[in-house]
């Protein structure tokens, strides 16, 4: 599914964010990406979403070399991913429904299908009844769940989450992690970057640990 082959990333105005990182994620696998702040977790996820390109090595997604992807192919690569951000990245002037529907509208899905799938996704994150609210009217945890619903509504084969529980209390964090486990159970590959070592250990899944850009545990 996802293959990192001796990947290094050096930012133009900084040091090495990633150094010789190699690992492989099988389809349907769930893994946590941990490490200190500045270890390179976000950078690694950005390489997969082609928000950045690696300086050396190659990133393969479904056998496609992302380093060589042309700019006009990037949107289609991103449609295969469900991206979840620590700061949610919701459209503040759109309702919950419209936010979740965005990937489907972009993909040109028909109106009825959109309604059906958006309701299903909102149901999955337990937000039914809040479709017509605006993000400002929701709590941090609720906004995060809207972000998750938007990430899964298009049924992507790979979900990438960058600190999805950063702002949440332990109970809610555990709840959201269970949600990711539920997606994994239906065959989705999941990669979650997080600081929350305790939670990661309790869940007992595969852990990829970064230290100053090097992969020290996989």
């Amino acid at each position, binding site marked *: 599914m996802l293959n990192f082959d001796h990947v290094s990333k050096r930012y133009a105005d900084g040091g090495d964010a990633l150094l010789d990182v190699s690992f492989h994620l099988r389809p349907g696998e769930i893994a946590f990406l941990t490490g200190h702040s500045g270890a390179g977790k976000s950078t690694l996820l*950005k390489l997969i*979403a082609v*928000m*950045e390109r690696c300086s050396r090595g190659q990133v393969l997604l479904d056998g496609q070399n992302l380093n060589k992807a042309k*700019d*006009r192919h990037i*949107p*289609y690569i*991103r*449609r295969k991913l469900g*991206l979840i951000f620590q700061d949610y*990245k*919701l*459209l503040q002037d759109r309702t919950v429904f419209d936010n979740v529907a*965005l*990937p489907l*509208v*972009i*993909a*040109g*899905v*028909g*109106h009825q*299908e959109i309604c059906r799938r958006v309701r299903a996704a909102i149901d999955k994150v337990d937000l039914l009844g809040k479709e017509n609210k605006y993000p400002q009217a929701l709590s941090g945890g609720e906004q995060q769940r809207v972000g998750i619903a*938007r990430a899964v509504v*298009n049924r992507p084969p790979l979900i990438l989450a960058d600190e999805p529980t950063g702002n949440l209390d332990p109970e809610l964090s555990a709840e959201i992690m269970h949600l990711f486990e539920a997606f994994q159970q239906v065959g989705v590959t999941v990669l979650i970057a997080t600081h929350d070592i305790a939670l990661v250990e309790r869940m007992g899944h595969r852990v990829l640990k970064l230290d100053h850009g090097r992969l020290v545990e996989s």
Partner: protein
Amino acid sequence: MDRLHAYCAIHAHAFFSSLGRLLRTPFTTVMTVVVLALAIALAAGFYLLVANVQQLTAGIQNSNQISLFLKDSVSDDSGAQLAEKIKKYPTVEQVNVITKQQALAEFRQYSGFGEALDALEKNPLPTVLQVLPVSSLTDAGQLEQLVTSLDKLSAVDFAQMDMQWVKRLQSIMALAQRGVTLLSIILGSAVLFITGNTIRLELHNRRDEVVIAKLVGATDSFIQRPFLYTGFWLGFGSGVAAWLLVTVMMLILHQPMQRLSDLYGGIFDVRYLGFGETSMLWFISAVLGVCGSWIVLKYQLQQLKPE
């Protein structure tokens, strides 16, 4: 089928939502549209003014009248004989004789120098023959030939083509038309850049939205669609506003222009922008709006990366 339907729905949505967005910020929109409309109206108004005056030269084109001033020694009778002779030319349609007496009477009536004329012993005015060439004779060279041949007649003092001032007017009009074209190009580029800049600001205001859309897999064409429609609405709206401006301007000018025309024997009718011209105006305005937006989007969207 469903996808095609969805595609049309996306277009329809972008079409109307971009209009809705403009209407939700009426002040900004009105400011922009007024500036655009003034630029367009300036070009269209100048065009219409020239088109109105153009009728003058169009109406006169066929009156290639030639005046023959006969020598003072030639009597009215021999003048009439000469007229008969000239009338037989294949290139001449008609000849009118203005005798010395007629000329004097006319002069007396219009000039107000009646008493001064009475003081003169002799009528100083010559006999004049007004020669009207056949209407098929429009070529300048042929006309020139006719004038020279008439000029050579021994009884003729000199021949004058009344075309001279028409020619002058025509070259002034040609200049004015060139001016209209030039002004339209300049003001058209102004419209292009103003819409472009408006779209640039709009893009800047909505950059978060654009970045998020890119992150969930939106193509550039999806992202730029609503902005292109915004450009369309701005251009089209300005075209309509400009048309209104020009029409109101013409309504105000109608009476004085009509009076001027009447003074010259109804030489032209006051003209407004016709159906074809109006459609063209709106079409060009809309196209300029879309193009201005497109140019900006082409360069700015590439720079708007999620990072």
